[in-house]
C-alpha cells in the first residue's frame, strides 16, 4: 500500500515538474521574443503559445499516426491487445477502432488549422492585415473548423454505436462550440474583406 502511495506521489511530483517546466519554457521564449521586439507584445505572446502547442502537437501527431496504422494493420501480428483504454474510452472491436482512427485523423486536421492560424499570426506580425491573403486564411480556418466539427460528431457517433450507447445531447458541447467558432472565423473573413475595400478606397483618394 505504501509503495503504491509512493508511486502515486512520484507521478504527481513529476507531473507538477512537467507543468512547471512547460510554463517556464513558455515564459523564456516569450521574454526572448519581447526583448527583440518592443511593440505588439500580446500578439507575440499568442504566437509563442501557438508555436509551442504546434511543435508539441506535431510530435504527438506522428506518434498517433504510427499508432493508428498499427491499429488498422491488425492486432495479432503486432501484439496490440483486443481491449484497451485510450483517453478514457474503452476500445473493443473494429467499430471503436475505426472511431479512434477517425478521431486521430481529426487531430491531424486540427494541426493543419493550427498551422494556418500560425501563418495568420505571422501575417499580422508583418502588418499584412487588410490583405487578400489574410481573408483567404481566415476563411480557410473557418471552413476547416466546421469540417472538423462534423468529423468529430461522426467519430463520436461511431464510438457510441460500438458501445450500443446511443443518445443525443442538445447542450453546448464541443460540436456546437466548434461550429460557432468556425462561423465566427468566416464572419471575420467577411469583415476583413470589407476592411480591405475601405483601405483600397482610402489609398485611391488623392
Amino acid at each position, binding site marked *: 500500500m505504501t509503495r503504491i502511495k509512493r508511486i502515486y506521489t512520484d507521478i504527481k511530483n513529476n507531473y507538477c515538474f512537467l507543468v512547471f517546466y512547460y510554463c517556464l519554457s513558455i515564459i523564456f521564449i516569450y521574454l526572448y521574443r519581447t526583448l527583440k521586439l518592443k511593440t505588439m507584445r500580446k500578439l507575440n505572446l499568442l504566437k509563442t503559445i501557438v508555436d509551442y502547442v504546434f511543435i508539441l502537437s506535431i510530435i504527438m501527431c506522428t506518434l498517433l499516426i504510427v499508432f493508428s496504422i498499427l491499429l488498422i494493420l491488425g492486432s495479432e501480428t503486432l501484439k496490440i491487445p483486443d481491449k484497451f483504454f485510450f483517453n478514457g474510452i474503452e476500445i473493443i472491436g473494429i467499430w471503436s477502432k475505426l472511431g479512434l482512427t477517425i478521431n486521430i485523423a481529426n487531430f491531424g486536421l486540427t494541426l493543419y488549422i493550427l498551422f494556418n492560424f500560425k501563418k495568420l499570426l505571422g501575417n499580422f506580425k508583418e502588418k499584412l492585415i487588410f490583405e487578400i491573403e489574410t481573408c483567404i486564411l481566415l476563411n480557410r480556418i473557418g471552413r476547416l473548423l466546421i469540417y472538423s466539427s462534423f468529423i468529430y460528431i461522426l467519430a463520436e457517433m461511431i464510438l457510441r454505436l460500438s458501445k450500443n450507447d446511443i443518445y443525443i445531447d442538445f447542450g453546448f458541447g464541443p460540436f456546437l462550440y466548434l461550429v460557432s467558432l468556425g462561423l465566427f472565423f468566416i464572419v471575420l473573413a467577411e469583415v476583413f474583406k470589407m476592411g480591405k475595400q475601405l483601405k*483600397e*478606397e482610402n489609398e*485611391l*483618394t*488623392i
Partner: protein
Amino acid sequence: MPIIVNLDVMLAKRKMRSNELAERIGITTANLSILKTGKAKAIRFSTLELICEILECQPGDIMEFVAE
C-alpha cells in the same frame, strides 16, 4: 467611371510638366498619375483647390461627366 479627368489637357495648355505640378501640390507623382489615368476613386477638396489654384482654372475644366 463616368467622371473623366482631363488634367493632362490642362497641363499641356499651361505648358507645365506633371512632376512640377505634383511637387507644387505636395503629392507624389505616383498619386498624380493615378488621378490622371482615372484609377482614383475620390479626390480631396484641398487637393482640387490646389490644382485649380496652380493651373488657374475651374474644377469643370479638369473634370467632365460623360454618361455611360
